[in-house]
C-alpha cells in the first residue's frame, strides 16, 4: 500500500518536473530606445554671481533623426544642500542650453540637468555638476588687524578654480558694508549655525569700541540688530558689547569670553548667551575665569580655569554651571586639579589625539613650567615639567599642532616647537626684523588648511603665512604667503 503511494507520488512529482520543459512564450526581443551621450558639460564650474553663464551641451541622441525639434523637455535645477529641503531647489532654466545671467546667491550648488524624451516618456538625468556661485568675498581668510592703531578687516579671497588668491584690504568698505569698525582690532571668528532659524553661517568681527558684530555671510551686510548683544537674553549687555575672544568647538555652539566671564550658546539645546557660566554649582558667586577655554569636542567636557583659586573646573552645558574636576591623587605625573598652585599660561583644545586639551602652567612657588594634557573626558594623559625650552617665560603666543601634538610658542620674532616626548624645544622660524603678531592652527575648514601652522608677522605691513608641520621635528615647509595685510591680530577661514 505505502509502496504504491510512494510510486504514485514520485510519478506525480515527475509530471510536475515536465512542466519545466514548456517553452516560454515571453518576448525577449529587446529594442533599443533613444539614449543620450551628453558632452560639453564639465564636472565643475565656478561662476561669479550676476555674471553671464553659458553651458551648451551636445545631446548626441542615439535614435533621433532630428526631425522633431520639439521632442525634448529640459530642466536645469540648482540645489543648495546646506539649505532646508523645501527651499533648497531652484529651477534656473527650462531650455536646452543654460544661457543667461546667473542670479543665484553665492553658495556651492549641485546642478542637475534633466532631459525628458516626449516620445518615449523617459526622463534622463545627467551626472551631478558642481556649481560654485561665488562673489569676490566667497571664501578665504578673514584677517583682523590694526592699521595705524585702528581696526581693519582684510580678506585673502580664495575662489575655487581660480589659482591666484586676491588680497582685499578693508573688505568691509570694498563690499559696501554698513559696519564701520571703531577702536582696536580684537577678534574675528566664523562658524556655522550661529543662530536658530535661517541664518546658516556667522562671521563675527570684534573691534574694541564698535563691539562684536555679525556679518551677513555672503554680502557682509550689517545693521545694528546684528550685534551680538542682540543674540543675548537679559538686558545686561551693552549694544556695543565686545568680546575678548570667542571659541567655537565645531559649530552650532559657541563660547564668549569677556573680562573673566564666559557665556555660552548652543543651538540644539536652545541655550542663549545670558548669565555668566563661570560659576561653581555649590558656590554662590562667579569665579574669575582665565582667558583660555579648553572647549573640548561636541561629546566632551569643556574645561575652565579659576584664576583666584588656581583650579580647573569642568563645565556642564546642560546645567549651565561648573563643577569640580574628577578626583585624582596627585603625584609627580598627576596634577591635583583643585589645588594646582600654578598660574595658567595657556590652554586650548586641539585636534590632536581625539581632541586632547593642552595646558601650560607656571608653578607659583618654583616658577617652573609644566605641560598638562588631558582627554575630552578630563582624564590626564600627560603631566611633566617643560625642559630645554628657551625663553619660555617670555612667550607671548602658543598653538598646538593637530598632527603631532607639538606645542608652538613665539618669543619676539622667533617661533619654537616644543615636543612633549623629547621634552625639548627647537627653533623653527626666525623672522629677523619682523615681529610675530599671530600664531595658530585652524580647527575648522578644508583639509588643506586644517593642519597648517598659521603665522602672522609684521614689519611695515602684515603678512600671513601657512606652514606644513613635518613629523619628527622636521623643518617647517612654507606653503602659502600673503602679504600687504594689516597688523594681524586674529584670523579665521570662511569655509564653504
Amino acid at each position, binding site marked *: *500500500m505505502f509502496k504504491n503511494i510512494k510510486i504514485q507520488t514520485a510519478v506525480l512529482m515527475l509530471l510536475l518536473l515536465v512542466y519545466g520543459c514548456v517553452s516560454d512564450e515571453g518576448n525577449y526581443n529587446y529594442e533599443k530606445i533613444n539614449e543620450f551621450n551628453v558632452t560639453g558639460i564639465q564636472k565643475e564650474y565656478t561662476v561669479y554671481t550676476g555674471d553671464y553663464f553659458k553651458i551648451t551641451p551636445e545631446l548626441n541622441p542615439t535614435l533621433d533623426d532630428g526631425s522633431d525639434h520639439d521632442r525634448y523637455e529640459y530642466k536645469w535645477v540648482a540645489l543648495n544642500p546646506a539649505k532646508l529641503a523645501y527651499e533648497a531647489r531652484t529651477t534656473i532654466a527650462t531650455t536646452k542650453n543654460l544661457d543667461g545671467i546667473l542670479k543665484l546667491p553665492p553658495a556651492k550648488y549641485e546642478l542637475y540637468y534633466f532631459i525628458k524624451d516626449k516620445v518615449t516618456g523617459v526622463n534622463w538625468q545627467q551626472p551631478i555638476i558642481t556649481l560654485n556661485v561665488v562673489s569676490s568675498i566667497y571664501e578665504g581668510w578673514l584677517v583682523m588687524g590694526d592699521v595705524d592703531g585702528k581696526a581693519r578687516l582684510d580678506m585673502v579671497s580664495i575662489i575655487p578654480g581660480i589659482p591666484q588668491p586676491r588680497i582685499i584690504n578693508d573688505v568691509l568698505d570694498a563690499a559696501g558694508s554698513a559696519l564701520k569698525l571703531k577702536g582696536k582690532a580684537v577678534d574675528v571668528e566664523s562658524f556655522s549655525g550661529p543662530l*536658530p*532659524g*535661517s541664518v546658516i553661517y556667522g562671521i563675527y568681527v570684534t573691534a574694541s569700541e564698535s563691539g562684536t558684530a555679525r556679518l551677513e555671510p555672503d554680502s557682509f551686510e550689517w545693521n*545694528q*540688530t546684528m550685534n551680538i*548683544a*542682540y543674540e*543675548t*537674553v*537679559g*538686558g545686561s549687555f551693552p*549694544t556695543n558689547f565686545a568680546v575678548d575672544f570667542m571659541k567655537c568647538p565645531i559649530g552650532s555652539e559657541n563660547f564668549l569670553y569677556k573680562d573673566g566671564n564666559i557665556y555660552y550658546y548652543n543651538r540644539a539645546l*536652545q*541655550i*542663549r548667551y545670558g548669565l555668566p557660566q563661570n560659576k561653581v554649582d555649590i558656590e554662590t558667586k562667579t569665579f574669575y575665569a582665565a582667558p583660555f577655554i579648553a572647549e573640548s569636542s561636541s561629546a566632551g567636557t569643556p574645561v575652565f580655569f579659576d584664576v583666584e583659586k588656581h583650579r580647573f573646573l569642568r563645565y556642564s552645558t546642560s546645567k549651565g554651571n561648573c563643577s569640580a574636576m574628577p578626583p585624582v591623587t596627585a603625584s609627580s605625573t598627576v596634577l591635583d586639579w583643585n589645588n594646582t598652585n600654578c598660574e595658567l599660561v595657556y590652554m586650548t583644545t586641539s585636534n590632536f589625539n581625539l581632541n586632547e586639551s593642552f595646558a601650560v602652567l607656571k608653578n607659583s612657588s618654583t616658577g617652573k613650567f609644566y605641560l598638562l594634557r588631558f582627554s575630552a573626558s578630563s582624564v590626564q594623559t600627560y603631566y611633566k615639567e617643560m625642559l630645554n625650552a628657551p625663553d619660555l617665560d617670555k612667550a607671548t603666543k602658543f598653538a598646538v599642532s593637530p598632527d603631532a601634538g607639538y606645542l608652538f610658542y613665539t618669543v619676539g620674532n622667533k617661533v619654537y616647537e616644543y615636543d612633549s616626548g623629547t621634552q625639548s624645544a627647537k627653533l623653527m622660524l626666525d623672522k629677523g626684523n619682523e615681529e610675530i603678531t599671530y600664531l595658530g592652527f585652524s580647527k575648522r575648514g578644508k583639509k588643506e588648511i586644517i593642519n597648517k601652522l598659521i603665522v602672522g608677522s609684521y614689519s611695515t605691513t602684515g603678512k600671513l603665512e601657512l606652514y606644513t608641520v613635518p613629523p619628527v621635528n622636521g623643518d617647517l615647509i612654507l606653503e602659502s604667503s600673503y602679504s600687504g595685510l594689516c597688523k594681524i591680530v586674529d584670523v579665521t577661514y570662511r569655509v564653504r
Partner: protein
Amino acid sequence: MKKILILSILLFSLFGLTSCDKEEIETYKAANNIYFPRAVFPAYNNAPLIDSTGFSFSFDKADVTGRIYSIPVQVQGVVSDVDRKIKVSVDPSSTAVLGTHFSLPENIVLHAGKQIDSIQVTVNRTLDLKDKAVTLVLNLEENEFFTVNMKDRITNVLTQKKINYTRFKLTFTDKLTQPIGWQAVFGVFTAKKFFLMCELMNLEPEMFNQPQGSPGLSIPETLYYASFMKRYLTDQKAEGNTIYEEDGKEMLFP
C-alpha cells in the same frame, strides 16, 4: 480501498462543478446623494469632522487681494462618465455678500469619473473685513442629477446638536487678533508691534498661530524675542528714532 479513492475524487469534482454557475453582482441602484464630505470623513488622521470652518487674511502680505477656497463635495452613489451639475444656493443667513465678499464659479459640476470634487469659492479681501468677520453659508440643493437625502446627524442627543451634511459655513476676516502664540512677555498685542517683531527677526507670522512650546515658541525663544525687541526699542530711542504705536503711545516691551 480503491473504491473509496475513486468515489472521493468524483465527489470532489462535483463540488468543483458548483462553481460553474454564473451570477450577476448587484450594483448600486438607489439615488445619488450629494454632500459635504468633511462632515463625514476627516480631512486627515484624527481630524475633527466639520461643517464649518474659517480663515483670516491678517497674516497675509499686503499685496494678497483674495484667495480661492476649495470646499470638497462628494457623491454617495454612482460615478458617472459625464459632468454632472451641482446646484448650490447661498443661504439667507449668510452675512457674506455675493459679488462683494465672494463669488462662486458659474458652473459647479462634479466632473466625469470623479467621486469627490470641489466648489472653488473666490474670497475677496475687501476693506470692511479689517474690522469684522463675515460668514458664507452654502446649501446643496436637489437637481436632476442629485438628491440631498443625506441631511444631517445628531452629534449630541442632549442638546440635539447637529452636524450638517448639505450646509457648509465659511467664516473669513482680515482682522488681526492676538494669536495664541503671543506671550505675556511681549506686552499688549498690537499689529504694528507684531509685524515689526516678525520683520526684524525674520519670523513667520504664521508661527505665532501655535501654542506656547511649539517650534520657535519655546520659553527660551520667547524670552529671547522679548529681549531682542527691548534692546531694539531702547537703541532706536537713543538714536532719536523712538518707535510709536498707531495710537501715538511709545511701543513698549515690559
